């Protein structure tokens, strides 16, 4: 071995060192190739070309609107200075390759460590740029998202719902004051909220001019110590909230549920009074008051329901996966299928199919299943089952392949048939690994079922993605809490089962 290495080293370079270096400046790596380091030269050439190609792509991508390379380059550097750093590294790499070629041809004990460091560095920085990695954004915007994050972390305000009721008390205001206004009398039932205004007529405010009539508004029978909004309703039943000095006007009721305040009849662009010469408006006090005991919120109930659905989704797909993958695993194990060419072919075909299925993610299978059976948990179960069959089929068959063949031979030697041999010699050996792989898969399936809903495969993931899209972070937080809680319990249970059975 060492002799062989020496003979390789003793072969002289095809070109003198300086030429090797210069040729490397023309085509990076060419110098190495001619200095009888063909493979290293080829690798360096490919590395350099791909790095340079990526850089050009990123420059033209950063300055898409510019025309001409110089303009593009300037714009790109200006927008993303990191591209300049990459250029510098690439140039250094280019020079290093030439220098290394020179050294290689000169048979100097050259140390290519620095060269490879630059190769790795250039790709690392390229990756940084392509990945649009920006820690400053993380720090800056991360801070802003903190309140949102807090809602996710502690979402329990949304777990309870306080039943609410809209309390409205309203009084008529005649504009302007006339003698002959016809205002139907109000009937207020005992205990209902009501308001009165004095006077009950007046003039509108003028645009940037005199204020309208000031009315004394008194309300009673509202919820105590609660915020109350004031609204106006004009004669054509347009509603608008009362502002004063640009601010919405709010008043808090006293402990008896009463309030007293002044309101000024606001300004209106076209005060149509109709043919009667006057209009009847209403001024209203509106209060959203909670009544009765708090109840569990709809979001919480939905989360619980969907979490149960999720757990069963994971469970059913594991059960189906196990049942179906057991027979598959037997025909996918080499040691049971090496009897003749037919069984060997079956083995090869089954193994290949399993590998293909396994290489496609469960989420993709979910999308396919949704096309087949529509949205909902059944699609999720199908997807996870398919993936489980492939994954478990492989794990199981590997467990079968690694069994001790001795007992199998011994049972065969007693005159047992195939089924008896499998039952007595194979099954006892594969129970522990099967149990452990099954639990492992169950674990994966429940985890997967929490996200499979994001593409519509049923389970809590569906709620989660919807609430996130609606920016309802508290509800999303509830869903996340449920997922975390379930997965933690599952972890505990599965490790317990593993300890008992394996």
């Amino acid at each position, binding site marked *: 071995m060492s002799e062989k290495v020496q003979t390789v080293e003793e072969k002289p370079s095809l070109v003198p060192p300086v030429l090797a270096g210069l040729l490397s400046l023309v085509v990076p790596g060419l110098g190495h190739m001619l200095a009888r380091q063909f493979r290293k030269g080829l690798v360096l050439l490919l590395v350099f070309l791909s790095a340079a190609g990526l850089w050009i792509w990123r420059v033209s991508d950063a300055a898409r609107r510019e025309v001409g390379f110089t303009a593009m380059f300037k714009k790109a550097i200006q927008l993303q200075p990191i591209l300049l750093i990459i250029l510098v590294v690439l140039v250094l790499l280019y020079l290093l390759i030439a220098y290394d070629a020179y050294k290689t041809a000169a048979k100097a004990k050259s140390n290519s460590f620095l060269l490879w460091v630059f190769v790795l560095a250039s790709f690392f920085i390229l990756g940084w740029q392509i990945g649009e990695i920006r820690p400053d954004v993380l720090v800056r915007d991360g801070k802003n998202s903190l309140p949102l994050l807090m809602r996710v972390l502690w979402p329990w305000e949304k777990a309870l719902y306080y039943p609410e009721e809209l309390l409205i008390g309203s009084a008529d205001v005649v504009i302007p004051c006339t003698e002959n206004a016809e205002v139907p009398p109000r009937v207020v039932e005992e205990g209902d909220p009501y308001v009165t205004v004095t006077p009950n007529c007046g003039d509108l405010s003028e645009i940037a001019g005199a204020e309208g009539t000031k009315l004394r508004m008194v309300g009673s029978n509202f919820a105590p110590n609660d915020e109350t909004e004031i609204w106006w309703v004009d004669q054509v039943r347009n509603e608008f909230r009362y502002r004063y000095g640009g601010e919405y006007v709010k008043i808090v009721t006293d402990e008896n549920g009463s309030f007293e305040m002044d309101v000024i009849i606001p300004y209106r662009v076209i005060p149509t009074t109709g043919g009667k010469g006057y209009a009847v408006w209403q001024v209203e006090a509106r209060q959203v008051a909670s009544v009765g005991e708090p109840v569990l919120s709809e979001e919480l109930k939905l989360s619980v329901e969907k979490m149960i659905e999720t757990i069963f989704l994971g469970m059913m797909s594991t059960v189906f996966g196990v049942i179906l993958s057991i027979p598959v695993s037997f025909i996918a194990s080499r040691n049971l299928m090496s009897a003749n060419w037919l069984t060997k072919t079956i083995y090869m075909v089954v193994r290949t199919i399993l590998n293909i299925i396994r290489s496609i993610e469960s989420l993709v299978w979910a999308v396919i299943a949704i096309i087949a059976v529509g949205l909902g948990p059944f699609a999720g179960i199908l997807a996870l089952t398919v993936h489980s069959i492939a994954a478990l089929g492989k794990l199981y068959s590997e467990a079968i392949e690694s069994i001790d063949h001795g007992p199998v031979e011994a049972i065969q030697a007693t005159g*047992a*048939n195939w089924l008896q041999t499998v039952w007595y010699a194979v099954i006892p050996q594969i129970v522990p690994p099967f149990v452990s792989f099954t639990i492992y898969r169950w674990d994966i399936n429940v985890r997967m079922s929490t996200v499979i809903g994001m593409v519509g495969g049923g389970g809590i993931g569906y709620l989660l993605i919807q609430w996130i899209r609606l920016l309802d972070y508290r509800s999303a937080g509830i869903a996340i809490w449920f997922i975390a809680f379930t997965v933690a319990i599952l972890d505990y249970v599965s490790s317990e089962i593993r300890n008992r059975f394996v």
Partner: protein
Amino acid sequence: MLEIRNLTKIYDDGTVALHNVSFTVPDGEFLVVIGLSGSGKSTLLRCINRLIDPTEGQILWDGVDITALQGDDLRRMRRKIGMVFQQFNLVKRSTVMTNVMAGRLGYAPTWRSITNQFDEADRKRAQSALKRMGITDQANKRADELSGGQQQRVGIARTLMQEPKLILADEPVASLDPVLAHSILQHLESLNREDGITIVCSLHYLDLVQRYSTSVIGLRDGQVVYQGNKKQILRMTDAEFKSIYGEEAERMGGISGDLAADDEDSAGEEATE
């Protein structure tokens, strides 16, 4: 009578493990197969119960050609041939009882056997096999909780369930200490003498061979290079020894039966007796 005729086994990779092997084993014999590692002893034994299919030649047992049997016929033949292994080959996670009952599978209907419904006669048979091997109290332990010697006794008890006429033992004592080796071989000897079961056994230690065999076959590179009866083994010459074990081989310990008593192994034998 077991008659091996021109048996040849060539493995898929081209290894010639047996070449034109012929010999006969009269009923009631304790035949020992000796030879270096790789000489083909295991291959020979496995050909006899068809765990391996021979490439050429015939194996006649009471006139029936074993090499031609298929399917149910093969299984009916196998159940009359017990096999004991160097590594015991018990199902480690199953109980001793289950391992022993497994010896009855060739007789039991498939469905009843896999639902563990053996009949009363079979259970009695298992009890007496355990008793005979002195492991009755181990019946409900898991096989891998037993010592090597105990495991091998379970292995023999399993073959007893087959009510065999022939027992193949492939280096049954190679993983055991000398004391246990004698104890196991004495069990085989008692099956041979008292029950008239023919034994074909491969062994490594010459003193054990001399002590237990009634006839010997020497294999070298898959060919029979030595055949001898009890008397001849005790007087095996250096030349014969070298023809089996090669020119460089040194004989250690006893040359003849009377010298064998000085051996370490034989000391163990006395201890068990």
